[in-house]
């Protein structure tokens, strides 16, 4: 039996070690494209549950390595570093965002309606939802290049999450440099990991984000994993200044 006590720093230790291992090496000065990669580990290990889930840390490693290869200055966050306040404080500077956590279409009290969101880590067992309108407000309409929401439910047709990052739910062949990837319904971790392993690997081999999506889907998953995307199929995923694309832009929150 486990208790639901708090041991934030102890719980965050493995992720702090991971952050150190994945810290960017010194490189010549160049334009910086910030990326945040957040993963919820605390909900899936002691003291919140009595097992130690290995998926979140592995998937964070995949995302960090992939984003770094694409040229982003990426920082991994978990534990207290992946709190609602922390995410909302840094999101305006993010050119790319990855999250692996619990996600859903949640009731948002201030607006008296449902919005998509995902749960923070926060290093304890009481994990607040970060709602899409909160992200949209914090980003103040700023466009995002590459967004991977590795949660349940955040790529369903009515999802409000892409708009929070300034991305319209349109699919175009070329002309932009933006891409949103997420899953529909309930998604098992093993399948998400298989998808994302193929996705990041394809990007590292020079495939476009759309091609990487196609290769991610080209698997026999153990469950019925369903993914979707919006953005620019032919974009490489590599950092570069934002290309204006009228059909790609979405004022956030709705």
């Amino acid at each position, binding site marked *: *039996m*486990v208790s*639901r006590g708090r041991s934030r720093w102890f719980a965050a230790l493995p992720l702090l070690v991971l952050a150190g291992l994945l810290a960017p090496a010194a490189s010549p000065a160049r334009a910086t494209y910030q990326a945040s990669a957040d993963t*919820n580990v605390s*909900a*899936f290990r002691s003291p*919140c*549950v*009595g*097992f*130690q*889930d*290995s*998926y979140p840390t*592995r998937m964070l*490693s*995949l995302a960090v*390595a992939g984003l770094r290869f694409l040229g982003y200055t990426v920082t991994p966050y978990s534990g207290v570093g992946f709190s609602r306040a922390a995410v909302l404080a840094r999101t305006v500077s993010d050119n790319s965002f990855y999250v*692996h*956590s*619990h*996600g859903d279409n949640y009731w948002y009290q201030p607006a008296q309606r449902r919005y998509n969101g995902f*749960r923070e880590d926060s290093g304890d067992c009481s*994990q607040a939802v970060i709602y899409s309108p909160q992200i949209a407000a914090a980003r103040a309409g700023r466009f995002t290049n590459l967004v991977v929401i590795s*949660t*349940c439910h955040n*790529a*369903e047709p009515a999802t409000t999450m892409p708009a929070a990052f300034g991305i319209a739910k349109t*699919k175009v062949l070329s002309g932009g440099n933006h891409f949103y990837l997420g899953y*529909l319904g*309930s998604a*098992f*971790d*093993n399948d998400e990991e*298989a998808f994302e*392993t193929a996705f990041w*690997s394809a990007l*590292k*081999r*020079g*495939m476009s984000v*759309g*091609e990487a999506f*196609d*290769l991610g*889907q*080209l*698997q*026999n998953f*153990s*469950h*019925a994993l*369903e*993914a*979707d*995307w919006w953005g620019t*199929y032919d974009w*490489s995923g*590599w*950092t570069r200044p934002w290309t204006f694309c009228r059909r790609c832009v979405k004022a956030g929150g709705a």
Partner: protein
Amino acid sequence: MTRPSLHRHRLAGPALGAAIVLILGVGTMSAGAVAGTSSSAALAMAELTEARLGLPVPAGRSVVRVHDPRSALMVDEVTDLDALGRPVAISRFDAAGRLISSVRLRFVPPAGSSVIAADATLAATAIAARAGVPTPGSATATPRASGGWLVRWVRRVGAVPVPGDGVSVQLDARGSFHGIVRTEHELAPAPTIPIEAGRARLLAEARLDQWFPAGLRGDAVITSVALAWIAANDAFGDALPGGPAGLLRLAWVVRVTTSGSLAETVAGLELAFDAGDGAPLGGDLVE
């Protein structure tokens, strides 16, 4: 920053020299030479298979040898290139020359109308047959969120499913070929006398009692216990059993549905136990 070039040799015909070996890992890649005869055989297989699948003749093809640690397979991957050297299709073949997968890399705008499920199944069956991929059993056709259809044949050994194995054919909304993938892992010997389902349920109940405090334990309910061939994993910190990578074991898979407070973080669980001795083999989570 410019897009990186594909690390491939572009080949204009089958009788060519070395191609590049690309070892796919989680974070690392490395390359080396492949014998010319191997690349020639892979190119010839691609030309034949892709013609059967209705893929257009490319401006060029390249071949690499790829190791996928997840499936533990070493495959020859042939990439079709357009006149500008951009990839337009990828086909993979195993060491025996059998098709593992093929996909047309292209953006298909959402169509106004789509074929129905029955027609999608017929089309997928015909595609698999043309590609020489057997599709035993019955298929399920599922509309894809990103457009088109997924037609799936799950591998079965007797009555027991192998959930990660089988054949999938992806179609665009009009029923045209988009992709095909065949997965078939090696199976460990089945236990002579499997443990009973009731024993697996008790093992799962014991784990759930350990994992969740009293206030949450009631939110986790076992909804099914079924045999399946699965790959052991360390999802719950279990020690991995010995044996080659990718080896599947016969296991009791216990499905757990969550509700209430627990469902706010763990939306579902699967716990796997070796069907021979009840040893934990990991499982899976819905977050």
